[in-house]
């Protein structure tokens, strides 16, 4: 029964992955799925599509990769629905660790943050004793920074004046006194939004040769999509897996040289701490990068959204801005840098509120002015999210009524994370055919999986990347939704999976249990 179901699912996937599936699959698919309404949209088009006005679309959008992951998500949603309807499966709940999204995996929001937000949303709450006094005071103060005292009003383009000021103070504190100015900061609906705006100003879509951006492999795939969507060229530089995903300048040089005849490198994108690879850069490595971008005249994009998530012993997060400033002139006055942070990550983990910011260093003021116009077309970042950012960087202090609970909650998350990191490392490395580098930072494990040749063959037959095939089977058989390494970029011939490690402990234990059983079975099946 199960193998029949498996086959059914694989034909379904195969069908979606191959634009021209073989006839028998298609017919079978139609018959089987006609009642389930799961046919992909792309199926319904015939040759009439040329009649559409929209038939012809922006070529750089077409260049964006159609991610296999969307198919996995669709199937995961179906499974969720099936479970709800009581369909028997070998598991009762889906574990979705495909995003760096702690709340989704069951981590609870921080009470203080949500209490203050509730007070801001419904100020009548501030009139009773339902919420603690420091919560009410904080909500009151935040509301006073909003136009008309409402989170429903717009803020200035760059963000609420008060919040911008606090962000700059936070950065100065974080960076050991390196000054930061509110006017160099833009708050946006997520750090990815800021990044897209900066990329937009960097990338001249009509340039010939095209603009090139050096991007790590593996890398956050959304950024790669943004770069392609803006009409630039992605120049991958490979991180060295065997050395804990370290970044090597020789590899940057190789990637830079690979641009010859293809595009003109203009910017270097760094993710530190890494995503999906969990490395944390040392000061020395960062200094090398800074010298490299200065020498090659590259704009430096530093994605530092996981700065709060650092676990390794003797490992600490240093911001690019700090390292740059401490290198002194001339570098500190010339290297142009955009540094990104977010309220989606870290212990607060409020992804759904969509708030991040960018700080710009050493930018040409006349360019910054034009960037202001670009940000202004979206009016402003969600105000509730801006207040969340404010709370993230100004948590309750010892002595505040909310402090004990806040301390307890954040400690619990931190302890769990450290335990999870250790457990993942031990369990995954104990499985034959798996190897996992130590996770020093970030919220993902990105272990390498050695997929047997027979499984690779099978994956080819159904038109999938081998690690996508692995993830499909993992999802189908154990209800665990992870992401295939092929989405993030990996050395040819290697395969990985990515999953979020910021989960409650019992979820991580269950996940590792399911993964272990599945993996053993999978290796046996294809041995």
């Amino acid at each position, binding site marked *: 029964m199960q193998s029949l179901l498996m086959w059914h699912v694989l034909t379904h996937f195969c069908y979606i992955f191959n634009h021209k599936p073989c006839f028998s699959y298609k017919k079978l698919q139609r018959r089987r799925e006609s009642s389930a309404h799961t046919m992909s949209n792309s199926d319904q088009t015939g040759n009439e599509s040329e009649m559409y006005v929209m038939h012809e679309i922006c070529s750089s959008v077409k260049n964006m990769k159609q991610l296999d992951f969307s198919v996995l998500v669709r199937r995961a949603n179906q499974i969720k629905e099936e479970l709800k309807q009581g369909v028997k499966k070998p598991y009762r709940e889906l574990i979705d660790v495909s995003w760096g999204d702690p709340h989704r995996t069951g981590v609870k929001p921080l009470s203080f943050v949500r209490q203050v937000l509730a007070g801001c949303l419904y100020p009548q709450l501030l009139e009773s004793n339902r919420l603690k006094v420091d919560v009410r005071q904080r909500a009151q103060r935040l509301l006073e920074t909003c136009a008309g005292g409402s989170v429903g009003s717009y803020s200035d383009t760059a963000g609420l004046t008060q919040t911008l000021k606090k962000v700059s103070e936070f950065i100065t504190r974080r960076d050991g006194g390196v000054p930061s100015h509110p006017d160099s900061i833009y708050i946006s609906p997520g750090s990815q939004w800021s990044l897209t705006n900066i990329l937009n*100003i960097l990338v001249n879509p009509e340039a010939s040769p095209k603009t090139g951006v050096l991007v790590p492999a593996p890398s956050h795939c959304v950024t790669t999509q943004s770069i392609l969507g803006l009409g630039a060229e992605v120049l991958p530089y490979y991180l060295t897996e065997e050395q804990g995903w370290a970044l090597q300048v020789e590899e940057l040089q190789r990637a830079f040289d690979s641009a010859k005849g293809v595009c003109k490198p203009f910017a270097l994108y760094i993710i530190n701490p890494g995503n999906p690879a969990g490395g944390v850069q040392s000061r020395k490595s960062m200094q090398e990068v800074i010298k490299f971008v200065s020498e090659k*005249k590259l704009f430096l994009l530093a994605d530092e959204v996981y700065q709060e998530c650092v676990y390794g012993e003797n490992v600490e997060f240093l911001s690019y801005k700090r390292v740059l400033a401490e290198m002194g002139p001339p570098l500190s006055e010339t290297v142009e840098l955009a540094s990104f942070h977010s309220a989606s990550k870290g212990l607060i983990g409020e992804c759904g509120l*969509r708030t991040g910011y960018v700080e710009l260093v050493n930018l040409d*003021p006349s*360019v910054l002015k034009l960037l202001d*116009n670009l940000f202004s077309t979206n009016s402003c970042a969600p105000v509730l999210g801006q207040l969340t950012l404010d709370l993230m960087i100004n948590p309750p202090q010892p002595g505040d009524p909310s402090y004990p609970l806040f301390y307890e909650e954040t400690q619990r998350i931190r302890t769990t994370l450290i335990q999870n990191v250790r457990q993942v490392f031990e369990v995954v490395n104990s499985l034959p055919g798996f190897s996992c580098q130590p996770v020093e930072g970030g919220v993902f494990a990105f272990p390498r999986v050695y997929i047997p040749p027979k499984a690779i063959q099978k994956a080819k037959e159904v038109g999938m990347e081998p690690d996508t095939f692995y993830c499909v089977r993992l999802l189908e058989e154990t209800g665990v939704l992870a992401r295939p390494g092929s989405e993030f970029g990996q050395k040819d011939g290697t395969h990985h999976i990515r999953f979020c490690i910021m989960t409650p402990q019992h979820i991580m234990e269950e996940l590792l249990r399911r993964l272990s059983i599945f993996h053993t079975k999978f290796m046996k099946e294809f041995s």
Partner: protein
Amino acid sequence: MCANPPPPHTHTHTHCKYSMIFSFSRDNGTKMSQDQQAVNGVSCVSKVLTLDTMNPNVRRVEYAVRGPIVQRAVQIERELREGVKKPFTEVIKANIGDAHAMGQKPITFFRQVLALCSYPDLLEDNKFPEDAKKRARRILDACGGHSIGAYSASQGIECIRQDVARYIERRDGGIPSSPDNIYLSTGASDAIVTILKLLVCGEGRDRTGVMISIPQYPLYSAALADLAAVQISYYLDEENCWSLNVEELRRALKEAKQYCKPRVLCIINPGNPTGQVQSRQCIEDVIRFAKEEHLFLMADEVYQDNVYADGCKFHSFKKVLFEMGPEFSSTVEMASFHSTSKCYMGECGFRGGYMEVINMDPQVKAQLTKLVSVRLCPPVPGQALLELVVNPPQPDEPSYSTFMKERTAVLAALGEKARLTEETFNSVPGITCNPVQGAMYTFPCISLPQKAIDKAKEEGLIPDMFYCMKLLEEEGICLVPGSGFGQKEGTFHFRMTILPPTEKLKVVLQKIRDFHLRFTQEFS
């Protein structure tokens, strides 16, 4: 290459141990300090990203609603706080459609549900009505990990898209709507830019042309500049209450065909900044035109609940399209946009919105889905708010009567202010104003004396910018000059929101009246 020759480079301007250069842009308006010129000068020699190397399209992006006049207003507010003496004590920002900033109170029910979603422990309280709790539970159940802090699907939360579809069906008298065609967005502007991004392609004479009204909402011109699309302007007829004339569409299209490939027609109904509401007949004509000319229709309908004038009614493009029969309803491609920022709730800060796409090539829809995934997802509180807007309290629910009372009060006050504004402006010699049939703005025509026009030129300003700046400096009222929206050559306008509370609006109107008379006299 450099506007200013680089002065000798010194480090003396850094008064701390770190020498790092900050680029100040926001507060100093157009004037730059000596220091910054130095910074700028140095930059020309060594910067990677300069005016010459950056994306040239971005240089053309302008957004008047948040343009220089607003920057000056922010500066004046700061000066007032610092105790600088002015002929007024506060700046009234009537430049932007921001109801809450003008003192409008949020709808109680909406905020109750959102507070419950934010801090679900409150669900145990007996202070909240049951229907609010029920809605909050439903929303939380649809969120990953029952938290509004989890990412949603890029297209938006499924059950909210279903409710949006049902809402559209009710609005349009039963014409079916599919959740698959609904994309939730970060405010309507995000969705508008996304569709334009998809549509704009081609080179040279094949470059996509996009028809937009003049006057228009500057988001359109800004997005077109950014995308290097060709803007095709069609003029609204000010003498006929800013109505849209299909003959004018034909004229604009015919001209444009000589230098680009027109593919898109944008309509804002009810109008922004012009406040007109399109008649059903006019919408039919536009649809016929779009079909004949094979144009993609973008219907910006964010003010659909803001209709005040007697005899005016909002007709959605989709409804009219479907009532015209299958010949049209199965062929004309369209996207319609809506938002949580306007209407009676005016919750701009949440950045909620949606679009419905109709007759879109399924392959393109797949591309659209891919494109929106780069944004990860729209803000979840904004999605939750949208859920409440499309699924408000029902007559048998405890919150219904309060909700209706609040909703009616806001819309009635807006109607009253629309009339008041029109009447007052039309009583001022030199100002003529069309009725504000809908939306939230008035866009009166102002006659400026030749001497004022000359003076403006001397100062290097567009005459209506000169007028608005002077008004801001003298009366503390912030408006947006008509030139930011586009206007027939030789005519001048400004846009003002009708959102200030009635008593305050009266004061604002009086001040503008006095200013205008004074201005006319000064330059006559």
